[in-house]
């Protein structure tokens, strides 16, 4: 097995980015190291990116919130002359397995969503300062910023050239954000997405592709001014210093990956992995000051970091493991106490960041293309935040009554405020609202049991679990379910699950992960893009794609 793709970044040695901190304003410069590709066979020319570049970006965005809460405005710019960013590296895409492309796009989408939401969630605004060519994924980076400034040097342009140039889509939110976020009129968007050269100057502003077009000679100065103004008008409270996120400790063996609070046990023959989450063992911090002093070792932050790393590790490095089983063990009451410190101090910057982080991580779970199942066993601690896992997965199985030779406390579920608002899904509904989309009154009845330890029978009655099983049936039923699941086509399962998980309204985010991604993934499988004569394969050779012109 080759070295796994590692999402744990050494923040002291970014290869592709430079960050300068200056009080409330941070400047994030993209300066991709051409020879720093994650894999062999391509050079990251013209500030193009691959997964390795994006892993660093994700890390920076994350640290900006935890380590630099004093930052209110982040200016995203290029560290290279004449080019802002040319987007995802085409040769990398051309050479990549389909599964890698899909995973890569999902991760980059998640990163963009994360910094886009930083303004609302954390009061950190991103300004894209665009100088030079800004094409495809480059413009998508800018689109995810809260404000786009383009220099008017008569050459710099923003563009989405994927369709004419590569026969694929701007799949990192591009097609969705121009219409849903920037409200570009659809016919103008149609022109914009059909021209390789992009749109520059005043027209880019007129078409709402950028927020501001700035004279080239005063560009840097104007960007600084805007950053200062945004920072001073921000209502983000001043925070003196953040906390340090140290590199996660992780241990990988052949069939086991473990962190301090999580152990993932891989059953290769059964194509499944069980995520064992451990509840807290120590009392909740008495105050946010204590929490902050515990820093990245505070239980709920540590668990969240480890869960995120586990999700990403398993997504990228264990592609054949199609079924993820969630299991928790611990003291539900203690867990709820840890959580209530955060909810009671929701205005505290660090409490807020940890909660927002959980929101993002739970969303990662929602969009993970694996069958997800949760087991509510005796001794488990599905309370509040961890109970959200029950409503994120495709099915839940809960133990009912006492099991022979099992002296653990009886399985229960504890609902808290966490299940009724702070952790919405991409559709902006809570997981319970989505679950009970046709019976909103069931959300009410669940809410009435907040704080109580809900046993299996009650949980079943309230519709919180899929199936409750006693000692006689548990083992066999679950074995049969897992064997059956493992036998189905993984493609059909991915499609089925992704459709069933997101009932309710569409949002920009669901459209990105649903409509845009699904179409992109279809195109990524079509010969016109990826066949030996397809545009993506032929890119760089000088020979054009040879298309089958049948409309499907």
């Amino acid at each position, binding site marked *: 097995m080759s070295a796994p793709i590692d999402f744990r970044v050494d923040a002291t040695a970014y290869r592709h980015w430079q960050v300068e901190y200056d009080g409330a304003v941070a400047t994030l410069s993209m300066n991709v190291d051409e020879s720093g590709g994650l894999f062999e066979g391509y050079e990251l020319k013209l500030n193009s990116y691959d997964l390795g570049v994006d892993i660093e970006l994700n890390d920076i965005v994350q640290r900006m919130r935890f380590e630099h809460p004093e930052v209110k405005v982040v200016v995203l710019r290029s560290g290279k002359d004449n080019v802002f960013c040319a987007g995802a590296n085409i040769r990398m895409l051309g050479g990549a397995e389909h599964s890698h492309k899909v995973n890569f796009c999902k991760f980059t989408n998640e990163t963009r969503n994360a910094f886009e939401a930083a303004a609302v969630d954390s009061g950190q605004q991103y300004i894209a300062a665009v100088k030079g060519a800004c094409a495809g994924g480059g413009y998508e980076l800018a689109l995810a910023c809260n404000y786009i400034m383009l220099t*008017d*040097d*008569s*050459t710099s342009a923003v563009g989405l050239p994927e369709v*004419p140039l590569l026969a694929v889509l701007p799949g990192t939110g591009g097609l969705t954000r121009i219409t849903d976020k920037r409200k570009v009129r659809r016919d103008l968007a149609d022109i914009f997405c059909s*021209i*390789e*050269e992009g749109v520059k100057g005043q027209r880019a502003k007129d078409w709402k592709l950028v927020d501001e077009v700035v*004279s*080239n*000679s005063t560009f840097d100065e104007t960007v600084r001014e805007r950053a200062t103004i945004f920072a001073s008008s921000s209502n983000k409270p001043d925070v003196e210093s953040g906390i340090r996120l140290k590199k996660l400790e992780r241990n990988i063996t052949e069939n086991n990956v473990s962190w301090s609070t999580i152990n993932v046990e891989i059953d290769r023959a059964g194509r499944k992995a069980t995520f064992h989450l451990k509840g807290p063992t120590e009392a909740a911090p008495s105050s946010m000051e204590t929490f902050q002093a515990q820093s990245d070792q505070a239980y709920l932050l540590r668990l969240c970091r480890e869960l995120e790393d586990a999700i990403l590790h398993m997504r990228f490095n264990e592609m054949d493991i199609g079924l993820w089983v969630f299991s928790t063990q611990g003291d539900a009451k203690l867990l709820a106490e840890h959580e209530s410190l955060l909810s009671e101090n929701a205005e505290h910057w660090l409490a807020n960041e940890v909660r927002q982080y959980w929101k993002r991580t739970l969303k990662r779970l929602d969009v993970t293309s694996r069958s997800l199942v949760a087991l509510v066993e005796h001794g488990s601690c599905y309370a509040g935040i961890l109970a959200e896992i029950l409503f994120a997965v495709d099915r839940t199985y809960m133990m009912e009554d006492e099991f022979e030779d099992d002296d653990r406390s009886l399985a229960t579920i504890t609902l808290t405020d966490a299940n009724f608002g702070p952790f919405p899904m991409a559709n902006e509904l809570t997981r319970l609202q989505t679950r009970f989309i046709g019976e909103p009154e069931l959300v009410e009845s669940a809410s009435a049991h907040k704080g109580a330890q809900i046993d299996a029978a009650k949980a079943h009655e309230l519709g919180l679990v899929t199936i409750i099983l006693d000692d006689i049936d548990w083992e066999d039923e679950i074995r049969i379910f897992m064997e059956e699941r493992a036998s189905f086509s993984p493609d059909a399962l991915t499609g089925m699950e992704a459709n069933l998980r997101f009932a309710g309204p569409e949002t920009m985010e669901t459209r990105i992960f649903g409509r845009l991604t699904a179409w992109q993934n279809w195109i990524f499988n079509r010969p016109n893009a990826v066949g030996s004569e397809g545009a993506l394969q032929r*890119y*760089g*050779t*000088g*020979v*054009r794609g040879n298309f089958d012109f049948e409309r499907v």
Partner: protein
Amino acid sequence: MASTLDVSYDTRIPNNVGLGQDRKVLKALEKWHPGYIDWWNKLIPQNFQNSMVYLRTAVSVDPKGWTKFDYVKMPEYRWGVLLAPQVEERTIPFGEHKGKPAWQEVPGEYRNMLKRLIVIQGDTEPGSVEQQRFLGLTAPSLYDLRNLFQVNVEEGRHLWAMVYLLQKYFGKDGREEADDLLRRSSGSDEAPRMLGAFNEETPDWLSFFMFTYFTDRDGKMQLESLAQSGFDPLSRTCRFMITEEAHHMFVGETGVGRVVQATLDAMNKAGISDPNDIANVRDLGVIDLPTIQKKLNLHYTLSLDLFGQEVSTNAANAFNAGIKGRFMEHRIKDDHQLTNDSYTVKNIADGKIVEEEVPALTAVNMRLRDDYIRDASGGVGRWNKAIKKAGFDFQLTVPHEAFHRQIGVFASIKADPNGNIITNDQWEAGKNEWLPTLEDGTFIQSLMKPCYEPGQYASWIAAPKVGIDNKPGDFEFVKLHMA
């Protein structure tokens, strides 16, 4: 078709493309015209605008006799739209459409690629005029002043030629791009020219000669490859531009040659035998050969950068599309499609310069640069002949292609003029030996004094062997308006 050989002067814009009948394009060009005249008027110092310059104007595109010489004030120069005669039944000479009839209209699928190539080419034309705008003030003779202005007005005409293509074939987008060609300006903070070499200053006349010899030669190579284009109007336009461009290179080659000659003559006269005796040579009021070598190093390497990346997707696409060919495409013996061919390019591996075989299609830029290097060596040989004939042991040489590069694989390393990879420290220690220093520039500037008397030449440059249009050396090539 004899009619396309002659130029029609009945519209405001002289042309051989039937503009008189093409009301829409004529209107568009006439709308663009005032902006152009305005650009020109603001560019070159006013006293030169009012001077009478002995210029050639194209009156036909017949290679046998296409020019007419006369005195003209530059703003009144008849900048025309001139295309080489159409070749009957011309076919696309290369790429995947090879053998099909050449396009007379823009093929929709290549609209963007064509437009981009035309815009980049168009952007260089006014760029060089902007770089050279103040040189008139220090002209070493009226003969050279005329040559400068000739080059300038013809670069202006080349801009016209590209603008015509944009206006005629690329609709609204093309018109906007045409406007932007006047918006960008060499070295501007606001909107610089697209290519780096065209934002560098041309501070003195030796730079001008080096520029016309080396950088205009890049222009020639680009025009040669665009002249092969399957898009016939572009091909015809470029074919005629090449005819004019030849004179620019002549100005460069003879210009450098005359600078060298003046140095050789002065050294011989003063009895200096060591060309490296820089201080004493400079005291003679001429430019020493080592400094000429440094200038050559600079302009040659900036020009190599204009060829772009050695391995280039854009160049491959343009070739395969039949839009931009190779130098002397018709003389190359291959399938003109490069389906299975490879080409050797240089690359850096483990700190060494290595040769690699890559698909020839992706190495079209590299091949053009190799052709350029051969083409550029001819004049250097002739300068060396003069040095040898004058009895000096000195040779001007073009540096290795790895030396002083900003674009392509060599941009990542430092190399000396012989192509040895060196450390940053070695570069810092050697660069003053290889490239012009501030002090060299100051010295050359000190020589740049105008010499406006007919038949007189500045100390640092020899008289030409023959004048332009067979006029004698003391002919008044420019009747200066010294208001």
